């Protein structure tokens, strides 16, 4: 029971400190808006087919995640609160707390991008809603889980933000390829059974990354 309470406490702490300053939320939203603006200006009159729309959708999410999600451990390192966290909760509790927070952040981010895309692009009409929602949900969770682990790894390094992107891209690449393909399918209105292999990959990816992170987090966290 203590364990669950510890996880909840960490999530609550991060949510509260986030709501206080709204630093990460604002940064993420600004990033999304600016990248979207560039895309709109570039693609003003051209026809955007499903593959391009899908790729752009996930590119925006990917780079926004790269700019924002590493804060979860880097901010602790900068504020010097790592020792307190190590004392107060077990490593896996810290991991799950941070993971849940990051998942929430990424889900918020992807919903915002979805909303903006629907408003801005007239051709972004999703014909199989079920596939789309499942893809975005699982994709966001996958992004969050990989990002959390890598954020923990780079927390003690120098040149954090470039290193974060360099490390995260190859790890996220299989997920990225899969969700872009699945989202393109959902825009085109494909049937559910055609996208089952993609969902298998997404769920498999999630299980592998969370499982691996859970096992290895102790070594990354403690000295």
């Amino acid at each position, binding site marked *: 029971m203590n364990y669950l309470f510890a996880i909840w406490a960490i999530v609550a702490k991060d949510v509260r400190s986030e709501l206080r300053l709204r630093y990460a939320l604002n940064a993420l939203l600004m990033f999304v808006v600016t990248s979207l603006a560039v895309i709109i200006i570039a693609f003003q009159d051209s026809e955007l087919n499903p593959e391009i729309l899908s790729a752009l959708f996930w590119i925006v999410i990917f780079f926004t995640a790269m700019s924002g999600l590493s804060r979860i451990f880097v901010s602790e390192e900068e504020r010097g609160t790592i020792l307190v966290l190590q004392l107060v909760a077990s490593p896996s509790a810290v991991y799950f707390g941070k993971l849940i927070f990051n998942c929430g952040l990424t889900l918020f981010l992807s919903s915002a991008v979805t909303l903006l895309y629907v408003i801005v692009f007239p051709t972004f009409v999703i014909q199989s809603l079920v596939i789309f929602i499942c893809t975005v949900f699982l994709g966001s969770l996958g992004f969050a889980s990989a990002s959390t682990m890598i954020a923990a790894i780079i927390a003690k390094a*120098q040149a954090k933000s470039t290193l974060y992107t*360099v490390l995260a891209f190859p790890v996220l690449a299989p997920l990225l390829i899969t969700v872009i393909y699945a989202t393109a399918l959902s825009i085109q209105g494909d049937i559910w059974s055609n996208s089952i292999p993609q969902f298998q990959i997404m769920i498999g990816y999630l299980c592998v990354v969370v499982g691996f992170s859970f096992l290895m987090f102790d070594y990354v966290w403690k000295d």
Partner: protein
Amino acid sequence: MNSLKVLSIILIAFTIFAGITVPMAPQPQSIFEFPDIPGLGETARIIFFHVPAAWVSVLGFLISLYFGFKYLRTKEYNYDIKSVSAAGLGMLFCVLAMVTGSLWAKFAWGSFWNWDPRETSIFILLLIYGAYFALRSALGSDEIRARLSAVYAILAGLTAPFFIFIMPRVIGGLHPGAEGDSSGSIPIAQLKMPLNMYIVFFTGLVGFTLLFIWLLNVRIRAVSVEHQLLIKDQ
């Protein structure tokens, strides 16, 4: 150890010799002729060098995983040295496999790079280990660097077999052995090669593996001596 080195020299020399000079004929008459596959022709000779390079690369990454694991268990710095050396060699042979593969692709498919699933997966593998070295260069203290790169080496080493063995067979593509390839999914394991080709191929495989062991041994000793020099100066 010395016998390993001599053996590797001889085996690879033999593979080079046989791989290049044994003629190809449509209907092989004797053991001194390779069969001529209509689509590939002489370019099939690449199999003696390209596949062992890819195999040795995966071997290097898996050994790096193993030593990373041992480091986390025992915290002995020697294991970290062994882990980096193996990863470096894995990278080298990954690049070699990519280069030989794209040279072959120019002759077989017309262009150097096609984003075929197997090409893409080996490229991502290269990026993963590139990130490994970027991570190492960004960390200051020996102990933290060893610990974090051991964790990353384990993660990356787990993905390597997936990228090399599983992904290219599941997704359809141009490379031999992809989904939908009529000649079967694992030409080597399914014994599709005639015996004389097999002999040359396995000689090459063993020779390259022994070469890898030699290279790894030399690298580990070099880094260890360097490390000892550093400790002595302190």
